[in-house]
């Protein structure tokens, strides 16, 4: 392709300057390789994608030697030797050897039925396999892999894509676009497995299955390896030309030999290799001008854009999408149409764009990007596309909504027009957002139009409308924490990217305030499906220890219910000695804090504590911290019940699961309340007749006594009710709301109805709590002492340099 393009440009400039011979490895004329996907999908025939037919070669006096690759270059004599053992002289030589597909070195990669996706032979092999039907596994969820998968699925194969990274096309797309892409591909019946690593290809004399490193076995009659390409440099290397990743060329496409030039995917120019078609055409232009003896505009590198050639999937990406300040990251989402648009700016210039679902403005953004045009004046309307430019200044939101006609659609999800909403407000006397949602369905689904509906309330009711204390979760959305939680369940949103897209997030990837909250909500809603995102967590929860003012950490093992043993105390003393831990302190939660542990020492400290049976006290967690107890009926002359024993049982049963904020419990053995149960999140006060369960206390920044939830007669009931309260809190509370805050917002009566009155509901809460506990039952310290996430603890590198004397 690259060579053909050079010749076209050359013949246009200097038709008769050279006598041209082309040696090609493929047994056919020059065709448009990037159109192989439509050939596979059956949308085009090979004849449709031929660039130069035999007549063209004849017309331009070009000798095309098909299926005759060059094996060696004699640079001194300026001759090439071909596979047919022919020797051919040259004045100027152009290397356009392209690239080779990368084969992953797994066992079975050489089996029949394993193909790549590079040339027409590969496509023919795939079409032949597809004609027999069965299962296809495509390894690689990049551009080529997805195009191959779409083609095979069209041809009726049951197709699975295995992708190593967590999101598809991660080099060209951000997580939101990748989420939409995955959804669109899955809609075609293609299964997509992300974060999936191929371990082996199984089969005797032909491929039968693909095995992943997690043990999954995927049946396969055809395996397509599409994990990437590598410049084909063997010939250049053998000839002694300078080769790094690709054949090194200068701005005039000249290799380290003045008479040898290179273009296309085989070259490395200014440290870059390209695998797309646009750079190849730009290189061809430069080289042709040079060979023609014309004034040459040097090739200075290319800015590339990506489009996926899968029918019905509109996707465009260009440039770089690093997150910047909010004003430099403009996002427009339309959840009902599956549209996501994002333009990234730097210094008022476009540096990147990702479009999904509506790519009409891709070329326009790309043009502005390449020209580095100043878009300052268009900043506020840029995202709406080229057609919107040239209008007046943006209106204030209330005036803008007020100025819409009555039939303008406000809520895309439920198809509610402005007139319906304003009429409902005036005729039915609606005064709040919730009223409008209940009465018209507007803003009741994805919630993206919430601000418009609120603007309608303001413009219709004027001063009579007060926002009623609705507090959006963060600047990324108009929805409250509770509204987001409810939608995560009802819409079955199972990743952060799904939430961002389906709830119309205003930013591309959330912010430090909503990311930890969403991470928790998703974990709580889908304990086995959602993958915890460590980078959306505060350091303490990432490293399972508490950071101190000097950057060291504190380590607090569990002492169940505040009980310990001489052996445990000896183990703690030994650890403190061995790791020279400077401070050992008894905490307010009845356990021991080891302060001043170096981060690198954490895994070893834990290993030693684990060996003595001590596990993480989760003193860092938004989760169950401690269950404080008094000595109770076992020793105390006033004790009515075994408060210590109940405390131990509660702590063992309730610890582990993440919660919206930290949770502290206490059990007092009598109303003298030595364990201070009435200022805890959940407190139990034992009495002669059983157990009083209190909730919503606090003794920190706010001091608040608990409220009595109920009285139960038995220890088993006490445990069941506590678990149910904890789960209800987990499911309902906004992130970073302590139990008392949740109680304040929800009201004691509602909580009492759910826990005390609704027996089935309570048992269901406990069952869901136990499900969630199954996902976290391993001690996080033991996992990390065994080597998990070692990168959190060890430096990337330790460099010790012997300084030159002069520098001392």
């Amino acid at each position, binding site marked *: 392709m690259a060579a053909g393009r050079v010749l076209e440009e050359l013949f246009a400039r200097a038709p008769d300057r050279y006598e041209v011979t082309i040696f090609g490895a493929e047994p056919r004329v020059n065709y448009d390789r990037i159109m192989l996907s439509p050939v596979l999908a059956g949308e085009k025939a090979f004849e449709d994608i031929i660039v130069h037919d035999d007549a063209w070669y004849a017309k331009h006096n070009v000798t095309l030697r098909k299926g005759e690759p060059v094996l060696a270059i004699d640079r001194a004599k300026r001759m090439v030797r071909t596979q047919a053992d022919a020797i051919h002289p040259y004045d100027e030589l152009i290397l356009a050897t392209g690239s080779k597909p990368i084969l992953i070195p797994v066992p079975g990669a050489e089996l029949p039925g394993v193909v790549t996706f590079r040339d027409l032979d590969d496509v023919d092999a795939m079409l032949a396999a597809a004609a027999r039907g069965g299962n296809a596994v495509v390894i690689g969820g990049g551009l080529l892999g997805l195009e191959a998968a779409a083609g095979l699925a069209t041809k009726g194969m049951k197709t699975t894509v295995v992708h190593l990274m967590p999101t598809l096309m991660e080099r060209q797309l951000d997580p939101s676009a990748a989420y939409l892409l995955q959804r669109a591909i899955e809609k075609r019946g293609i299964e997509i497995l992300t974060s999936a690593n191929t371990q082996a290809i199984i089969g005797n004399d032909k491929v039968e299955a693909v095995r992943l490193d997690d043990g999954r076995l995927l049946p396969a009659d055809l395996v397509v390896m599409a994990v990437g390409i590598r410049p084909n440099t063997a010939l250049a290397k053998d000839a002694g030309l300078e080769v790094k990743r690709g054949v090194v060329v200068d701005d005039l496409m000249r290799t380290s030999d003045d008479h040898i030039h290179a273009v296309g995917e085989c070259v490395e120019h200014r440290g870059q290799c390209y695998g797309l078609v646009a750079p190849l055409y730009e290189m061809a232009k430069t080289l042709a001008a040079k060979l023609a003896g014309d004034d040459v505009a040097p090739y200075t590198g290319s800015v590339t854009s990506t489009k996926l050639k899968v029918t019905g999937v509109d996707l465009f990406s260009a440039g770089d999408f690093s997150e910047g300040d909010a004003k430099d990251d403009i996002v427009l989402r339309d959840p009902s149409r599956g549209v996501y648009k994002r333009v990234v700016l730097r210094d008022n210039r476009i540096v990147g764009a990702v479009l999904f679902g509506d790519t009409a403005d891709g070329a326009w953004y790309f043009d502005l990007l390449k020209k580095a045009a100043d878009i300052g004046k268009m900043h506020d309307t840029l995202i709406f596309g080229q057609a919107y430019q040239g209008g007046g200044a943006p209106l204030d939101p209330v005036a803008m909504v007020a100025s819409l006609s009555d039939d303008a659609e406000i809520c895309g999800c439920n198809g509610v027009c402005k007139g319906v909403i304003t009429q409902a407000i005036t005729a039915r006397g609606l005064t709040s957002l919730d009223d409008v949602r209940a009465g018209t369905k507007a803003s009741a689904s994805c919630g993206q139009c919430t601000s418009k509906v609120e603007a309608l309330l303001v413009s219709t009711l004027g001063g009579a409308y007060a926002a009623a204390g609705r507090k959006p979760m963060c600047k990324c959305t108009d929805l409250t924490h509770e509204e987001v939680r409810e939608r995560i369940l009802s819409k079955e949103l199972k990743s952060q990217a799904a939430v961002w897209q389906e709830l119309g997030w205003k930013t591309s990837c959330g912010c430090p305030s909503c*990311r930890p909250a969403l991470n928790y909500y998703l974990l709580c809603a889908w304990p086995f499906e959602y993958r915890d995102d*460590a980078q959306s967590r505060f*350091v303490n929860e990432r490293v399972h220890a508490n950071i101190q003012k000097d*950057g060291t950490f504190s380590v607090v093992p569990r002492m169940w219910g505040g009980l310990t043993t001489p052996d445990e105390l000896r183990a703690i003393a030994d650890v403190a000695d061995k790791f020279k831990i400077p401070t050992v302190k008894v905490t307010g939660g009845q356990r021991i804090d080891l302060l001043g542990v170096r981060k690198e020492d954490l895994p070893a400290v834990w290993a030693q504590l684990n060996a003595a049976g001590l596990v993480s006290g989760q003193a860092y967690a938004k989760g169950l911290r401690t269950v404080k107890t008094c000595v109770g009926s076992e020793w105390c002359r006033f004790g009515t019940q075994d408060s210590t024993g109940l405390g131990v049982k509660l702590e063992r049963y309730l610890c582990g699961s993440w919660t919206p904020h930290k949770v502290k419990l206490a059990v007092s053995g009598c109303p003298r309340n030595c364990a201070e149960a009435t200022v805890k999140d959940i407190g139990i006060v034992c009495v002669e007749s059983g157990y009083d369960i209190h909730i919503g206390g606090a003794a920190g920044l706010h001091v608040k006594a608990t409220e009595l939830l109920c009285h139960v007669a038995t220890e088993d009931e006490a445990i069941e009710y506590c678990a149910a309260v904890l789960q209800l809190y987990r499911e309902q509370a906004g992130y970073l709301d302590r139990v008392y805050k949740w109680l304040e917002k929800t009201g004691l009566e509602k909580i009492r109805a759910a826990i005390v009155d609704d027996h089935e509901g309570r048992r269901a809460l406990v069952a869901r709590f136990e499900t969630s506990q199954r996902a976290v039952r391993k001690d996080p310290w033991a996992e990390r002492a065994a080597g998990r996430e070692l*990168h959190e603890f060890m430096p990337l590198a330790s460099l010790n340099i012997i300084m030159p004397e002069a520098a001392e």
Partner: protein
Amino acid sequence: MNSMLTQHDFWFDVGSLQEIPVRGSRRVKTPRREIAIFRTASDEVFALENRCPHKGGPLSDGIVHGRKVACPLHNWIINLEDGEATGADKGCARSFPVKLENGRVYLDMSVAAAP
């Protein structure tokens, strides 16, 4: 050109990009200081002295968002590009030349090891 050549000799390979979590950070210990290498969502790398200008907090333990990191101690937001504190806070963590080549991260030790 000459100075570039000299500098080139001090680019130290400190590890592969893959070893740094996306939106995360790893430390590099050098004789004079600890340096935090950050990796953003779009695989850019930045290097800052691993000390918040506020109270010396380890920036490598902070939450990375955009081209910024939130110090884990008191939530100062530090710009990764130049180490400057953002918003109302004033202060600067020293930044160091770092580059990414073929998936490897290089730190310029002629600067990182200098006083």
